[in-house]
């Protein structure tokens, strides 16, 4: 390992500038504090021949001065850190999505095309990658020091993280949220490759079809199609016996809920519909959709989500 932690992503260097700026500022203040302590310790040591001040020293002016300087510096730091933080956590819309399921004590990765890997994540360089992460058990944390990013991975919901690797290479991945006995062993690597090699890797690891395709099979197997109709075109038609909303074109659009609110159908929403339907009832339909919590694994949920995302809106007749 080189002395410097590599800057593998676009923003790693920016985080370092901030850190080094605070280091520089801290050194200045440390110098001031240690310097004046040492200076005063020598100059005003008992017995030295210097003028002493009584307790009557005036303090207001200088108090106000150092308080406001401190405030000002802190405010500057806040702005700097906040601006970068917001950018660190706002994925560009065109990011390539990769799915992460954490469990005690491994990282399971699933790619759009259905490729799966454990404790390793292959990504192309030069392209924004967005991770959609969830946990099967406790809270974990996805951390790659070379990218200067980390985020907790929570059970029961999707958290996201994004980065764009600039330099090809292999980077260490850590779990940084204490998660039980083998937490320290819950490591892995992120392999960043040039796009052609990445394509090649995808091909070599191609499996039984894309996540969406596998999700389509699960859609039948779990009986979703019984209500939502084959291909998710909606119930209460010739295709199914009950009334259930169509899922075609659902993703990304607004959904009116029974309580009057309107939500956007993103991954988390679809996930909740499958695992916690009682939490979010769609307006205008009978509340008959059963909860699939405990029956569908997080990985299968991700595939169902991918499948529902892939359902294009029905072409107008």
């Amino acid at each position, binding site marked *: 390992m080189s002395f410097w932690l590599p800057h593998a992503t676009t923003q790693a260097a920016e985080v370092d500038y901030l850190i080094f700026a605070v280091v520089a500022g801290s050194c200045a203040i440390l110098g001031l504090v240690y310097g004046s302590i040492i200076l005063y310790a020598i100059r*005003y040591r008992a017995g030295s021949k210097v003028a*002493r001040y009584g307790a009557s020293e005036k303090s207001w002016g200088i108090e106000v001065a150092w308080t406001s300087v401190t405030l000002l510096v*802190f405010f500057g730091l806040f702005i700097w850190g906040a601006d970068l933080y917001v950018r660190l956590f706002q994925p560009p819309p065109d990011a390539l999505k990769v799915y992460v399921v954490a469990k005690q004590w491994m990282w399971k990765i699933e790619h759009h095309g259905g490729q799966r890997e454990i404790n390793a994540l292959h990504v192309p360089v030069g392209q924004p990658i967005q991770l959609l992460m969830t946990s099967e058990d406790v809270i974990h944390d996805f951390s790659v020091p070379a990218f200067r990013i980390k985020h907790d991975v929570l059970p029961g919901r999707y958290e996201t993280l994004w980065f764009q690797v600039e330099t090809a290479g292999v980077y260490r991945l850590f779990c*940084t949220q204490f998660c039980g006995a083998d937490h320290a062993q819950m490591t892995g690597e992120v392999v960043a490759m040039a796009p052609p090699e990445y394509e090649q890797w995808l091909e070599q690891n191609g499996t039984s079809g894309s996540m969406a395709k596998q999700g389509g099979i699960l859609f039948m197997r779990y009986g979703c199609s019984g209500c939502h109709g084959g291909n998710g075109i909606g119930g209460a038609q010739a295709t199914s016996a009950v009334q259930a909303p169509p899922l075609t074109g659902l993703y990304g659009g607004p959904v009116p809920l029974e309580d009057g609110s309107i939500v956007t159908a993103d991954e988390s929403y679809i996930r909740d519909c499958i695992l916690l339907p009682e939490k979010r009832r769609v307006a205008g339909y009978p509340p008959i959709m059963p909860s699939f919590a405990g029956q569908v694994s997080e990985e299968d949920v991700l595939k169902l989500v991918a499948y529902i995302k892939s359902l294009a809106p029905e072409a107008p007749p």
Partner: protein
Amino acid sequence: MSAVIADTTKHAKSYLTDGTTIRSWLLTTDHKRIALLYLGSITLFFFIGGIAAALIRYNLIAPRGMIGSAETYNRLFTMHGVVMVWFFLIPAVPVTLGNFLAPLMLGARDLAFPKLNLISWYLYILAGAAALYSLIAGGVDTGWTFYTPLTTAYSKGHVVATIVAIFIAGFSSIATGLNFIISIHTLRAPGMTWYKMPVFLWSLYATSVILVLATPVLGMTLLLLAFERIFHIGVFDPAIGGDPLLFQHLFWFYSHPAVYVMILPGFGVISEIVPAFSNKGLFGYKFVVWSSISIAVISFLVWGHHMFVAGTSLYSALVFSILSFMVAVPSAIKVFNWIGTMHGGSVRFDAPMLYALGFIGLFTLGGLTGLFVAALAADVHLTQTYFVVAHFHYVMVGGMVSAYFAGLHFWWPKITGRIYPEIWGRVGAVIIFFGFNLNFFPQFLLGYYGMPRR
């Protein structure tokens, strides 16, 4: 029983010799005796926590560990954290130096509620017994932060016993806090207005306010934790309808103010010692006083800075970041004022002053590294790594323990009627300062390189 306030050497009887039976100690309501009871018991726990720390370091010698399983290691650092936080750092200064000195500084015979004072010690002992039981029975493996659902659904350790221990210790804290608040309000000597109070009393006051307001939240949170673990009532575990982040909010709502419970009394001690050994009044008394009060207030509004990567909203992170910078301002003011006190004084370097200077040096480093983790983007990289371990050990051990030792040395003659060997006192102070840096400074670098804590 009469509290003897005058010089102990001139009297045949002092609080130390006035009754020597065990009974006379265990049933005493004298604040000085209770202070000594506390001194003995927190020293015991300081050693237990210290042994755990030594074993942690020992295990880290080899990459695969020196003491067997990962499980054992996890139990060690959990015990280290729990014991040090609740059985040493939080009570340390208030229950020993505070108990001993507060009535003397107020000019009162005793605290407002001497019996409550004794009860708080018994609660502490009871809590300590529960903690020891859980330790001997095999310990806990959750980390001192008890994050859910790990703690409620997955941990195999003695979670409930540990929770009971902390729960009871909380009541001991509340009793102590109430006692100080009421004593300071009602027992000040005639003519002692608020601004004539010693700064140490102000910091005890600020500490007590936090103890009384924050500790009940911890108590409730621990109860919920126990309910979920025992009866599977879904509060924090998403698998049974809970919210894992709720726990973190509640826990840090207590635990951030609690770090100020640990350090504020230390500030008070230093604010007494630096003037004493500079032979000059404290520079900017009112600023020092009000910085303690503002810390007590703002400390309740910054808990979210422990959750910048936990999955809370971006906006809340922005608010908590700016507030965290704000809470650092009063601490900076204090450091400047201590240095200002030395300016133009006549400075002597006895052991307490060396400890106090060590405190200022280490606390300043701890405080400055706090700025890294308050600045959002830097926190993303540094949080949950050894950087954070180093940061809070600089504040808690470098700062708080130095201040505690400074105070113990400073008031030792007053407490015991005997003087310690000055030279060894100084040697100790110097060794602690350099040894501490040797031990913890490299952890900042480890953290920057990304080494996860735990």
